[in-house]
Structures are given as structure tokens and as C-alpha cells.
């Protein structure tokens, strides 16, 4: 089969995407598929038309590739593609929108406030921040609403640290999220089709707990898969993850990040197109389920071509 692998693009996560894409291409070729490798740029449509692939494997992360933009284009062209559709991508990419959807679907997620930049510049939203202490409490996490990796995510121990964190987060998006910080075990559940894969736990090394970049660096975070959890916790975590996956309308594959404390699991975010690099969590989880990378890639393709088979 002729498969186009879409990777790179202009997003801030271009580097990770190129690595995901290269690994997928490698696997596709070994399986025996013909690969049309496309670094998504202004000639994307031309190259898709010229290459005539039967299906597109979207290995793009961040804005442009994971937010529904590329998916919309592929829909217009009538080309089947891997991973979630336009609406699900758009919902996952916008953390504020995603949190509303989660709450509406009764999926537990930490409390939050969201602001857009105009509110601060023109509407005096800074006044409303004084409610933060009562409504959310400290510490809290400040995140750009749209953004994939740890970039722009800041921890604020007290509200003296909030303005600076807001300035950082607004560098990435004109909408930001102030979210109650939940201390607990950091877990990720990848979902393939409609099947949850084994739970991965990320254990940051000492001192890196509030360093959000640490979890993206090999060696600074240890990953355990399957995570060592009691039966009750494990099923609560899996149920919450599946609830989030469905609430956001995901299909094909995605990854749900959660935190688990005494009160149970809470969903932090859903990555519509999670990383597929050597060190990414979804491939690790698949492998723990006995699914090597090639079979994982093959399965993702199947789901794209026969969504009903899921």
C-alpha cells in the first residue's frame, strides 16, 4: 500500500514530529508499504496529489498538524488518515475547550480558570485573579491553552508568581489556563481504537517535580509500564481515560494524561496525536501489551481505513 507520512510542519514541536515521522516511515517500509514522506509545508496538497497515496499517516504534533487543520484538508481531499478527526483534534488541542467537554461528560479534571489576553489588557481581569486563592488555592499550574509540550507551562507556588507565569504562557497562545495543582502519581493511558493500553507511570527524579521540562527528558524521568496500581485504582484510571477519549470524540489512537491522588484519578489533558518516538509513551504501552512498533503502526493504519472495525 502507498502511505503518505505527514511530519514536521511549522509547529513548535516540529523536532519531535520529525522523529515520530521517521520512525513510522521506517516501520512502514519494513512492513512492506511504499512510503511518501512529506514534511508538511506550502506544497502539502501538491505533493499529496502527485504522490497519490491511499492513506495518510499523520505524525504531526502541535498547531497545524494536531489541531484539525491538516485533518480538515485531508477530509476535503477525501483521503483517509490516521488518528482522530477534525473536531476531536480541535477539542484536544484547546485545553480550555477540552476541560469544558470533560466536565460536561462528568470526567474528573482539576478545577481551573481560563483567561484570554484581551481580558487582562482591556477588561481588568487582573481583579478577578484575587479570587484564585479561594477558588483554586495554591500552588497552581499556568498553561497556554494550545500547546503540546512543556513549553510555557509554569508552576506558581503563590500568587506573587502568577503574573510572570502568565506572561510566559501568553507567549504561546492568547488564552491561558490556571489549573489547581494536584499532587499525585502521574499516569498516561494510551487508547488504540477503543482499547485502553497498559497504564504508564512517569516518576520524576528528585527535585524535578515542578520542572515540567523534566518529564520530556530521558533520564530525568523514569517510566514504568505497566504501572504498579491496585485493581480498583487501575480500573478507575482506565475508566476515566476512556471517558475522556470518548468525551472528546477521539478515534484511532490518542493518549490521556492523568494524575492520581487519594480522591481518585483526574484527567489533565488528552493528546490527540501523541509522540511516536523511541521514548514516547504510547509505543511503550503498546509494547507492554505485546504489540511491537510495526504491529502498532499496522493497527493504526487499519483503524484509519476501516474505522468501523474499531
Amino acid at each position: 500500500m502507498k502511505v503518505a507520512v505527514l511530519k514536521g510542519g511549522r509547529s513548535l514541536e516540529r523536532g519531535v514530529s520529525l522523529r515520530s515521522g521517521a520512525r513510522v516511515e521506517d516501520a512502514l517500509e519494513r512492513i512492506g508499504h511504499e512510503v511518501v514522506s512529506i514534511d508538511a509545508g506550502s506544497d502539502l496538497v501538491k505533493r499529496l496529489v502527485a504522490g497519490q497515496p491511499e492513506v495518510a499517516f499523520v505524525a504531526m504534533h502541535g498547531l497545524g498538524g494536531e489541531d484539525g487543520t491538516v485533518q480538515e484538508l485531508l477530509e476535503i481531499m477525501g483521503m483517509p488518515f490516521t488518528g482522530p478527526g477534525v473536531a476531536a483534534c480541535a477539542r484536544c488541542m484547546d485545553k480550555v475547550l477540552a476541560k469544558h467537554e470533560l466536565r460536561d461528560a462528568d470526567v474528573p479534571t482539576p478545577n481551573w480558570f481560563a483567561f484570554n489576553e484581551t481580558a487582562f489588557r482591556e477588561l481588568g481581569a487582573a481583579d478577578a485573579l484575587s479570587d484564585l486563592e479561594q477558588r483554586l488555592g495554591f500552588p497552581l499550574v499556568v498553561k497556554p491553552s494550545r500547546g503540546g509540550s512543556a513549553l510555557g507551562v509554569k508552576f506558581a507556588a503563590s500568587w506573587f508568581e502568577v503574573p510572570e507565569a502568565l506572561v510566559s504562557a501568553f507567549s504561546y497562545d492568547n488564552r491561558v489556563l490556571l489549573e489547581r495543582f494536584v499532587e499525585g502519581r502521574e499516569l498516561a493511558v494510551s487508547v488504540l481504537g477503543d482499547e485502553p493500553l497498559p497504564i504508564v507511570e512517569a516518576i520524576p527524579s528528585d527535585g524535578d517535580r515542578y520542572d515540567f521540562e523534566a518529564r520530556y527528558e530521558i533520564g530525568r524521568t523514569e517510566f514504568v509500564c505497566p504501572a504498579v496500581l491496585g485493581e480498583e485504582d487501575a480500573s478507575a484510571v482506565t475508566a476515566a481515560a476512556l471517558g475522556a477519549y470518548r468525551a472528546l470524540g477521539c478515534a484511532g489512537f490518542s493518549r490521556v494524561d492523568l494524575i492520581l491522588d487519594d480522591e481518585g484519578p483526574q484527567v489533565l489533558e488528552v493528546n490527540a496525536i501523541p509522540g511516536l518516538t523511541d521514548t514516547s509513551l504510547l509505543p511503550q504501552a503498546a509494547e507492554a501489551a505485546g504489540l511491537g512498533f510495526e504491529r502498532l503502526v499496522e493497527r493504526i493504519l487499519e483503524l484509519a481505513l476501516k474505522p468501523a472495525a474499531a
Partner: protein
Amino acid sequence: MEETPHRRRAHTRTRDLQRYAGLFAARTGVMRSSAMRDLMAITARPEVISLAGGLPDTSTFPAGTFAAQMTRIAQESTAEALQYGPTEGFAETVDCIVEVMGAEGMLPDPDDVIVTTGGQQAIDLICKTLVDPGDVVVCEAPTYPGAVPVFCSYQAETIQIDCDADGMRIDDLEAVLEDLDREGRRPKFVYSVPSFQNPAGVTMSLERRRRLVELARRRELLLVEDNPYGLLRFGGEPLPPLYQLDGGDFVIYVGTFSKILSPGIRLGWAVAPPPVMEKIVLGKQASDLCTSTLTQHFVREYFSEGRWREYIADLVEIYRDRRDTMLESLSEHFPAQATWTEPEGGLFIWATLPEYIDTGDLLAKALREDVAFVPGQAAYVDESRGRSSMRLNFSGVDGDEIREGVRRIGKAIAEQVELYGALTGEQEAVPAPKETSPAAGESGAGDVLPFRKAGEGSG
């Protein structure tokens, strides 16, 4: 029909990764990849105006000259140019190096010189020769971003000494050395870029140069002087390199053809006292046997024409204009709270913003406007430092691009400053670029109840 060769198996299963990870040397643990590095990777997009690189302008090098020289090499010395060469480099290359150093008043013994694969390899070889894991290395704060990974990969404990407009603070250095004395430790060397420092753009004053050299003599301490830009002076009086002041007893000198001819030829050098040089040569032998003989031939041809000083003079003219353009643009587009250095030479300006601005995040914002710079943290071993500073290069792009690039960065900063003002009620923190007046709606931030400012209060 011939079968296409098989591509390497990916070796990317968890099992494979664990097998490799178990083999990694301890020093790889300090070689970090980070989200910031991924961000820097996208500064290479063609539509981005990059003030991030450290690129000299090679576009003015006459193509005809280049062609003639390469042709002459082919006609006269093909066999030799394609052959291995001595580890120390060709004597003729060393002659060129002595000539270049002579232009700054230095007179090295040719036997003390080794030709290296760029100045970068010289720094690497010096560390390889001198640094054991846990050894102390002292350098400037900020320091050359390319030196940081070298110090890290030799597992040095790096101490950075603040710079001001006159370069490294020698009083701070003395205090650090005394602290180390009390612990019974001493640095293996002090690394400095005294002239037109990368990234700060500052130049160490004559008085400090003398004090540093005197300090090195008194304490029998090695100095590593990295001087890629010394000949690129646009104004002011030339200052003697540390090597000249010291005479080469306690100074190991690092030079390069990168900024006066071409970085692509990867030709640099080190000058060190004979006992140190002996070990450096052994280290180089292990690393790559010898520096490219082809490019050494090119340098020899180039210098034989005797026009190398004129080429540098041309570059100085170009870079001076570009520096002036950048300084003008900075005063036009950067907010009042920003400060920046005014280099008398070299390639870089170092700008520092209000401390609530993280230049890593600012870079993400700037990239949306297709402009890039180097966030200050790259110049520090401790990545929590330098967060509000940035390095701006003025040699690699032309005046129009400098103006436009600085304008875009200035706009991004102005937006952050304004936002912070709105958040904290610090009305005076809203500068607005000089050519625009703040819109009425935006000035309403003054009515907002002051939000407490970072750093205030009991915490």
C-alpha cells in the same frame, strides 16, 4: 535487477533502548536534550529572520578567488591535498597562524602551535587534556554557548563569573578562587573570551587583562584565552591579548580562521606551553589524526596572495554598519527597561530585559513573527540563569533584515511588558515603542487594582 540495500533496523523497541541505555557513559547523563533545543531547531526555517546564528558573512568572499585557489591546489598539489597530514598541522598553515597572531602583537613559537578542526576542537582537546570528572573550570557569565556542552561532557564543575562592561569581574574571580582555596580546590583553568565576547559583546579592559594575567602568574593558574574576534574591531584602541601580556607561560591560546575567512573550512588552532601541547597532540591523534589537509592547502594559497588583511578590513566595514543598524533599531524598538551592550567589534549584542520576561518563552512568541535569537540560558551551565537575556547576532544578515528582525522582537517584548503592567498595575512599566502612542483602551490598565508584584511580600 539489483536489490536496494536494506535500511538499518530501527532498534527502537523498549528492550533495545534499555540495552543501549545500560551502555551509555556517565557523561552522557549531563548531555541534555530539551524542549528549548527543539525550539531552536525551528529557527532554521527559511522564512525566519535569524539573529540567532553566529554566522560570519561569507557572501562577499570573491567566488573567482576561491575558484582560482582551488584550481591551483588541484594543479599543483592534488596528491598531497588528498593525503593525510601531520597531527600538528602543516608547517605552512602554522606560518599563516603566526602571521595572524602577529597582527595582534603576538609572537608564538611555531612549535607551540597545533592546527585543529575549528576553535571548537581546541576547546575540546584542552578539556580532554586537563579535566577529570568533578574538576573545577571557571568561565565568564554569560559564556560562549558552545563551550557549555564541552565542559559538561567532561563532567567539569563549572563556575561562572559575572561580566560587566569591562569583561569578567576579576574581584569576583578572586573571591571564588579564595573560596575554592578554603576547600582545598583549584580550577584546572579559567576560560575567557576577552575581546568582543560571545555572547555578551563586551571587551575586557586593559587593567583587568593585566590583573588576570598577574593573578594567573601568582597562583600558577592556567588561562584559556579564546580569541575568534580580536581582529574584527570597529572602533576604539586595540588591546593586547592575554597571550601577549603573559608571553605564553600560563595562557593557552585558542584561535580560528572561522571569523576572518570561513567557518566552513573548520580550521582553528591552539597555542600551549610544550608539556601541555604534547598531551594535546596525543589527544588530537586519538580524535581525528589530523585536520583536513585540503582546507589547510586552501588557507596556504589564500595567505600567499597576501590580501587577507584587506578581506578582514572589508568585513569590519560591513559589520560596523550592521552593528550601528542594530543599535539604532534597538533604541527604536526595545522598551525603556531593556539594556544592551555596545560592542566595539565581533558579532554579538547581548540584551537584557525586565526579569519577569523569560526569553525562552519570548522566542516562541517571536517565532510566530518569523524572527529568532538565542535565549540567554544557553550561555549558562545553570539553566535557571540568563532567563531574561538574549544574544543577537548582527553579522549574518543585512541591515534591512536587522531592522525588521529587531522591530518584530521589540513588538513581542512590548506586548509582554504591557501585559505585565496590566497584571501588576505597574503603569510605568508600559513603555510602548517610541513611534506609537498607547491606545486609549490599553491605558485603562491604570484603573486596575494593583496585583502584587513578584518578589514583594513576605515570601
